[in-house]
């Protein structure tokens, strides 16, 4: 049995719905690592939202372009990197305001990045020359939200 990090990689088409493939794979890896069911549910939503962002905003639904999801597990944490061909995220995470949404003062949408940040222990958005990636980390022993 290998002691170091173990990596699983997925290549998804930029079509909505395929985020569920990444979601299921992340859940399976997290189960193997011994995460509790509620943390697995958190991870599934965060991974799905990251993939949707990559498909919609990074690759603009261009099915010629792939979203690459890399899951790296070690004894303490699971790291998920979601790569696309876009320029990356260059904005603060918007905290949705339900009152403003209900009164038509902000879009009903725009909650994905907030959910990602709220549901995992660490989030980072990195831009590179040939694309960008979101890096999510969920730890086996939750030490409280540590923010992005």
């Amino acid at each position, binding site marked *: 049995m290998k002691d170091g990090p173990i990596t699983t990689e997925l290549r998804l088409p930029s079509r909505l719905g395929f985020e569920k493939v990444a*979601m299921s794979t992340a859940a399976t890896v997290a189960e193997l690592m011994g995460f509790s069911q509620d943390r697995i*549910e958190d991870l599934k939503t965060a991974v799905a939202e990251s993939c949707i962002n990559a498909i919609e905003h990074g690759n603009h639904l261009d099915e010629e372009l792939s979203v690459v999801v890399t899951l790296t597990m070690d004894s303490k944490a699971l790291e998920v990197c979601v790569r696309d061909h876009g320029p990356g995220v260059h904005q603060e995470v918007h905290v949705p305001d*339900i009152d403003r949404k209900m009164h038509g003062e902000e879009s009903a949408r725009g909650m994905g990045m907030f959910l990602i940040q709220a549901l995992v222990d660490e989030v980072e958005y990195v831009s590179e020359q040939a694309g960008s990636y979101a890096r999510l980390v969920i730890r086996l022993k939750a030490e409280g939200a540590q923010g992005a």
Partner: protein
Amino acid sequence: MVAPTKTKVEQNDGVAVMRFEGDITSASEDAVLGKYQKLPENTSKVVLDFSKVPYLNSSGIALVIQLMIAANKSSRTVACFGLSAHFVKVFKMLGLAKYTTISDNESAARAAGA
């Protein structure tokens, strides 16, 4: 290919129960808002049944918010039930519980805010 969301609507005494079946995503506009818009005018309460919804993403939640906005404008109350513990948490994190009740079961949802 994403399987379409199905919605069955049951109406009784001004209460409409919208029973969703399947994922609720950006592809579910007709199943959520389209079905809502066809409710009779005398509907005073809308009960949303999520017990057969295995996957709900932020775009799907945005459709639920749009339904709540429309209901609010018509002075209709909205009640939800059948959400998993995870999505109860997500709805509360996003503040939806301020504008809808979230119950464990249908009878509690029907009774909520009545």
